[in-house]
């Protein structure tokens, strides 16, 4: 249960930062491209969903 000092050091700590940055970058770019190429009619249809019900 003791959560302090399990390890003296962790090697390659920078990998955490790099992995998360590249993950974020990848996801962001994928979403951006995906959104850019999205079908206009479909987008319009989706955005109208709330207005369909009373």
């Amino acid at each position, binding site marked *: *249960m*003791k*959560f*302090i*000092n*399990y*390890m*003296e*050091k*962790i090697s390659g*700590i920078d990998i*955490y*930062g790099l*992995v*998360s940055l590249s*993950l*974020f970058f990848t*996801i*962001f770019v994928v*979403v*951006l491209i*995906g*959104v*850019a190429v*999205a*079908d206009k009619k*479909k*987008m*319009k249809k*989706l*955005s*109208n*969903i*709330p*207005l369909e*019900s*009373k």
Partner: protein
Amino acid sequence: MQVEKFYYDNKIVKAFLYATVVFGIVGMIAGLWVAIEFYYPGATLNLPATTFGRLRPVHTNAIIFAFVGNCIFTGIYYSLQRLCKTRMFSNTLSWIHFWGWQAIIAAAAITLLLGYTSGKEYAELEWPIDIAITVVWVVFGINMFGTIIKRRERHLYVAIWFYIATWVTVAMLHIVNSMEIPVTMWKSYSLYAGVQDALVQWWYGHNAVAFFLTTPVLGLMYYFLPKAANRPIYSYRLSIIHFWALIFIYIWAGPHHLLYTALPDWAQSLGTVFSLMLIFPSWGGMLNGLFTLRGAWDRVREEPVLKFLVVAVTCYGMSTLEGPLLSLKNINAISHFTDWTIAHVHIGGLGWNGFMAFAMLYYLVPKMWNTTLYSKKLATNHFWIATIGIVLYALPLYWAGFTQSIMWKTFTPEGQLKFSFLETVTNIIPMYITRSVGGALYLSGALIMVYNLARTIRQGSFIANEEAEAAPMVRESRPGKEYWHRVLERKPLTMLVLALILVAIGGLVEMIPTFLIKSNIPTIASVKPYTPLELQGRDIYVREGCYLCHSQMIRPFRDEVKRYGEYSKAGEFVYDHPFQWGSKRTGPDLAREGVIRKNGEAWHYNHLYDPRSMSPGSIMPQYVWLFDDDLDTATTPAKIRAMQTLGVPYTRGYDRVANVALVRQEDSITAILKQNKIETPPNKEIVALIAYLERLGTDIELAPRTDSLPPTASVK
């Protein structure tokens, strides 16, 4: 295709709606009460329950979990059925959710007033209530996903993604931050200590704002704004980017609450970078909301619902611009621990959450009672009174925060601090008075709304089950390429898992290194566990909510070191379950109180009985009951054992003799008090609290203290 007929459940929406209104008023009254205590200490009535340290958590919990919580559920139960074109999955689960949540609120109000608290802001509730929250949250989740699965609309509208992300993230935050070891029925210790506890707490605290006060309310915005304006959202594409960027980035920003503290530097920088990045998705969302109204601004002039929505979304934008700016270290150095933060959160709370709730209520009541709003004029008056209320609330506090911070940091030409702490407080009392006027205006606006809604309800007739028709969803398999995001939108569980992975990454990257690497929390050999009496005193400190006005974190600034002593080190807090760094300095920092006020037993005794007898003009409440109430020593062995489980190195079997050491220390303190002509029985709570206050910060004094410290096993 055969069209199916079904009924939307409005009754459950009505129940949550009433709860929203009731707890909104209760939370605001509690807020106004604590605001008055800032300039009229007598408003505490000298009762434990109504003292700031206990009433403030009631205010925050009532507003966050009772008012906004019920508001979210109202909106979700209403919109989810309509967006999925189906009734809620289970009436029984709906009602278990409703009554379960209200029972939790009632239990929270009672226990917080009684002083049962885990001592972690916005997560104060004790372990039995934490378990109840988990159960009710799961019930809500099953009901929500059940509804999504039996839907008649193929695509999940963007609002539903926000609901899903909210559900999964809040579950994760609540469980991780509430890890605690029960000691008694209503007392537990956080599993984490010091720096780690602080990191987990603010990872939670910040994301409670993100995933309880923001993402679900954004879901409501994406539904109610198009409905009220009767036009689709400005850009559906932007909403997709808004969603993914927001949930990914938000989770990382927690450490910006801990800048310049003993938290490792790399974690602080990470928090700052992600906070700055947050501006983009947040503003994307705000602009998406505001642009939806382009071409419809003439209607804003006439329609109170739209008025509230416009200001709500604008406040969202202001708040999410200010937040990242406050995360810059140079600005945070001025703003942190001052009323600036309070002003900032109230732009979000009063402006964004409050106005979104009001807009939704004004929209829903006429719809569900099949009538029109009783008086648009009253609603418009409410709008203006509340808007002026926000301005009158926030501006004085910005002023107060900035002024006080600059006063703290002002030196005389001789190099001495120019102002005593008390002078910096009395200087801003007029701001506190103005703030409470703003709050009172906001509350009176809400009362006007209650009247208006009550009259609307009286003139209408409630539609408990609203009839609707829709074709069933056909599970078609279409050949050829399909747009990837639409595939995702049809699969709620995939969405849930993806959202969970995204939010978990941020938490893990920040926490694992802090938890595992020794160099992040350098141990200090002279830091020893608390004595049994100090431990009991510390629990009283937590119970009375002292951390809500006093920090225990000296930042490495010239003025703070001059005023409070050596800056705080990470290694000093390794036995602090929970950490007590605080987030606001209404009173001075106490991290080195035992050093600054060495031999201050008598001073503390008199000061806690009547602060103004020792510090004329002080706004601290009196703690008279501590002088009458006996210290409960029956819990000492259990507390020592719990601490041992958590890794605090008391020697084996110390729990059995702890009370002997406790009595010895009590006697030595009463003897010191007697020398100062103060007679008190040794077994009073005040003695334990004095023991704790006199211990604070003494561990790294140059001359090590050995007297009453407990024997310890060897610390690695």
